[in-house]
């Protein structure tokens, strides 16, 4: 999909903060010099093109009382699909990526208590029979800023 300058500025604005107002898309339109209808139309297009993942609230999980860990598993190549299916079935797992390492499957577990995090971990070990597992809970957060600069990219893929 071709992104024009207005799309890029729109993506910059909405990554930062949606106005907490009665007509947020009209307010964004004022900033961009376009109407509310055009803002909505562009957002629908960007959503259909799968450039926008979600528009909504992004929470600090710890402040909601949740706790979690980053896990890594050594999965044999021919078992990746099957093991991923076991892991991905847990609602406590929101991210799961294959990575270039002996520990090749990296996923997060997030739950309301430490005991639930451990239960998920133990169940995954038992169900997959894989016990080469790392569990690396965060001890300190230095940065979380999931905002991407879209201005220097010629075209979205």
């Amino acid at each position, binding site marked *: 999909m071709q992104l024009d300058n207005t799309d890029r500025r729109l993506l910059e604005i909405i990554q930062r903060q949606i106005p*907490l107002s009665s007509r947020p898309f009209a307010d964004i339109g004022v900033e961009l010099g376009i109407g509310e209808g055009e803002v909505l139309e562009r957002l629908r297009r960007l959503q259909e093109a799968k450039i926008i993942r979600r528009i909504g609230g992004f929470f600090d999980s710890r402040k*909601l009382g949740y706790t979690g860990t980053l896990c890594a598993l050594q999965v044999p190549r021919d078992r990746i699909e099957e093991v991923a299916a076991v892991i*991905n079935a847990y609602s406590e797992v929101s991210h799961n990526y294959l990575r270039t390492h002996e520990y090749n499957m990296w996923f997060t577990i997030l739950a309301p208590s430490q005991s639930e995090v451990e239960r998920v971990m133990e169940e995954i070990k038992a169900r997959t029979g894989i016990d080469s597992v790392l569990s690396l*809970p965060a001890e300190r957060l230095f940065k*979380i800023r999931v905002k991407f600069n879209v201005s220097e990219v010629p075209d979205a893929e």
Partner: protein
Amino acid sequence: MLSEFEKRVVREIQGDLPLESRPFAAMARRLGVTEGQLLDTVENFLERGLLRRFGAALRHQRVGYGGNALVAWVVPPDEIEPVGNAIAAYPDVTHCYQRATVPGWPYNLYSMVHRHSEAECRELVRRIGEALGIEQYILLFSTAELKRSSMQYFRD
């Protein structure tokens, strides 16, 4: 802790904001409150830091970020604070965490680096390592997204 009403608001706003003229009015109706009451609650979540932001998340692969690496660093424990802050200051680093170590796995600092290609990631990480005097690190490139969903809090 959060009140029952606040938990209902979390459940509502962790989904997708409807693309319509008055999206918060639509959410407020479902919650049985006024639009003003809902907006005040969201403001309050932001002030308390419960919400990091209310906005959009993009699929970074689709806006030209083809190189995405988890970098695991081994940092001397007494340097972790300045090194963590220095790595976090790079614009192409989106996440930076200190994590527990386990036997046989000495990495204690983790950062996500997003660039347009893997080569650019390698170059950036090499420069960061050089600038901070950190020699022991590994880059783990993501080759497939097996699951990526937004966390559903207070499901029951």
